[in-house]
């Protein structure tokens, strides 16, 4: 029997992706005046979409009774993409400050929301462990 549901692992993955995003935004903001710096973005959505469509990480089953891998579909790795396509200032820098600041705020709210989600899961477990008291 598994005490901790699979969804806690998924939420944990979401947290670490949000931390990575935060780091990338911080680096872009720090380098807003660096000549020839190209902004970076965390690309998680495309990895998620391709996984959802291809089912690339699923186990090979020849019988309906075969079991799935225990960690299946949770190993999603976000990648960092460098944006070379645009230019914002004459010194070759392409950090869009408005985009960075709004996404920083969005990422923060997302992180808080996921934290609330994990807290909810743990509170459920605690209620069950204490027998509903």
């Amino acid at each position, binding site marked *: 029997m598994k005490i901790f549901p699979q969804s806690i692992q998924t939420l944990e993955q979401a947290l670490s992706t949000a931390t990575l995003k935060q780091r990338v935004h911080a680096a872009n903001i720090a380098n807003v005046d660096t000549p020839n710096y190209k902004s970076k973005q965390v690309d998680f959505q495309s990895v998620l979409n391709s996984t959802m469509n291809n089912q690339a990480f699923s186990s090979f089953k020849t019988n309906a009774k075969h079991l799935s891998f225990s960690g299946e579909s949770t190993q999603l790795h976000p990648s960092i993409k460098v944006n070379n396509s645009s230019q914002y200032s004459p010194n070759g820098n392409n950090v869009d400050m408005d985009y960075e600041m709004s996404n920083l*705020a969005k990422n923060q709210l997302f992180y808080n929301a996921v934290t609330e989600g994990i807290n909810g899961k743990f509170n459920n477990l605690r209620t069950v462990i204490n027998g509903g008291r």
Partner: protein
Amino acid sequence: MSLFSGFNISATGLTANRMRMDVVSSNIANANTTRAQLVNGEWLPYRRKSVELTQSGVSPFERQLSSVMNHQSTNVSGVTVSKIKEDRAPFTLSYDPANPDADANGYVRLPNVDPIKEMVDLMSATRSYEANVTALNASKSMFMKALEIGK
């Protein structure tokens, strides 16, 4: 991925922008300095200085480690002041025969500092500093929230 690397990246931005502000302060303070350095027995006026910003380097070991740990090789790092450059623009000439540094024709060489340029640079550095503070506060509030998990 270390827990506090987001903090460190923002901190490099704060340091670099404070350095920019220091250099701008020096330029404004020396806007009328006619004796900044002695070259071959002749006093030269102050030359305007500016900072050169570069993305701070990531060591090869660190890059290898992060590529293995996080399945990515793009380096995400902060900013650093690589050097302080001197502006090679010509000095401005001002007619002031009473000045002790005036030449034979009565002209004084004044520093190539443009106060307007300095003020714009100062405001730009201030705004960048504030942006880095915002990013730092965001990181901090996220980690404070993470400490509440399981409470």
